[in-house]
């Protein structure tokens, strides 16, 4: 799988309240949630973001609550993948489980600026900044998690295993 999009850059410790404030958690509709994606970090993000764009952030992206609404709203807003130095644990799991591709690469985060055009090869974990021509390598996911993604999410994976 390959993604190509423009970069929206965020800082460190972006929490799930910034990604999707709790005042909007009275719905599970991805489309409704997408309207408020990243709202308390950047109030106009949902109006600016285009299909295929990529979020890049510093360390500990998605810290805080376990709300799956966070990766759901990012995916529904059209964001193709998220690259960060590190992800908070529950956000990491949730992203894998719902099929939002995520990549850890501190070098890419430092080397890529807002507005850059970036291409990501999800299978290889290679990240190419088409604006500067530089490329980066993300940490590969353990095979176990790649199987979940290939199956189309955790529930499909569980079904395939015959539960």
């Amino acid at each position, binding site marked *: 799988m390959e993604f190509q999009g423009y970069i929206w850059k965020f800082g460190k*410790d972006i*929490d799930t*309240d*910034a990604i999707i*404030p*709790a*005042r909007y*958690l*009275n*719905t*599970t509709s991805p489309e409704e949630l997408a309207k408020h994606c990243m*709202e*308390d*970090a950047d*109030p106009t993000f949902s109006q600016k973001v285009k299909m295929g764009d990529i979020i890049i952030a510093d*360390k*500990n992206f998605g*810290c*805080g*609550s*376990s*709300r*799956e*609404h966070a990766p*759901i709203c990012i995916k529904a807003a059209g964001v193709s993948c998220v690259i960060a130095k*590190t992800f*908070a*644990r*529950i956000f990491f*799991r*949730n992203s894998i*489980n*719902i099929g939002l591709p995520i990549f850890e690469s501190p070098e890419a985060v430092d080397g890529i600026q807002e507005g850059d055009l970036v291409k990501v090869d999800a299978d290889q974990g290679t990240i190419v900044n088409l604006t500067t021509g530089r490329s980066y390598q993300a940490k590969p996911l*353990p095979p*176990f998690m790649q199987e979940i993604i290939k199956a189309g*999410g*955790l*529930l*499909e994976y*569980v*079904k395939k295993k015959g*539960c």
Partner: protein
Amino acid sequence: MGMTITEKILAAHIGRDRIEPGDLVTAKVDVILANDVTAPVAIQEFERSGLNKIFDPDRIVFVLDHFVPAKDIKSAEQAKIIREFARKHHLPHFYDVGEMGIEHCLLPEKGIVAPGDVIIGADSHTCTYGALGAFATGMGSTDIAAAMATGEAWFKVPETIKFIYSGRLPADITGKDLILHTIGLIGVDGALYQAMEFTGEAIDKLSMDGRFTMANMAIEAGGKNGIIAPDKTTQAYVQDRVKRPWTAYQSDPDAKYARVIEIDVEKLEPVIALPHLPSNTCPVSKVGNIEIQQVVIGSCTNGRMEDLRQAAAVFKGKKVHQNVRCIIFPGTQAIYKQAMQEGLMDIFIDANVAVSTPTCGPCLGGHMGILAKGERALSTTNRNFVGRMGHPESEVYLSNPAVAAASAIAGRIIHPKEVK
């Protein structure tokens, strides 16, 4: 090489003698939890996937606690999805308005969670139950949906950081101060993917309620779980509550730790977390003149009996400052009732405190105490992120219940000893 308590519990749930940090394992889970925000997503995923059989209805716990009594029509619709599912599947552990409490206060109180358990919950503060010597961790709704069908979940066995709290706990220092100080020390990702094992003389002396507060906030340091080995205090708490067999695990003396951090509690004073991260800590004496408009006392962090007693001791015979709204949320109906029997409600109401039915409402800016632009709150809850309690330009400070009560009286953040 020995094993930590976290490793031993996980090993027992996969039927192995030993496991190592970093191992990816699938473990049986004893209790699966979700609330009115996360359960609807889990239910929708569960039904959409065609996994129609619940592995054991007795192991599933649904608590409506975030937005009930319903704050609006959308919340009412969400709650209805869970009610209908709970009835359809005859779930014995479904807690609705009138019987519910804040989930992490309710489950230990009802004896649903026990030492030695593996507990997963679609709520990040599921780590609270580590105070009982269980392995408890937060996950998302899809993980819960899968576990509802299989009774299992996958885990990466975490490394453990051992915290040793030495010295005699000063009278004004609570579990909240210990955990805020700890998060301030290591940062909001200081224990990312790791277990936090709380030990030492001060923990041995700490009440069960104080231990719940500490384990509750392990997630605020990025921790996978917080855990305290069971002892006499744990035994006394669970003996009349837990109706099934349970196991007390202890870390081996030669267990391997990623880090060992020693904290001398005798030098501590009450801790305040300043906006906008729980790690942004400061001793109360150095916080300066911070005026506040709202005080919230309660939540899964500090809504237990000891917390209400500490607040009442400060409020007795005093009034909330005229510029402050103070709201108290007992964690469960049983706590509410006991507070009434002990006369705490008289103290609160005479002090002009508003007392609410149990809810997570204000802690996450859901309802029952939302802040306007530019307003500032002192809260005994667990997070002070931007916009956490309302407007993105409002501010939340965190503290223990006695400091919160004293500050409600003064209209600014103070130490309880300053209350005139």
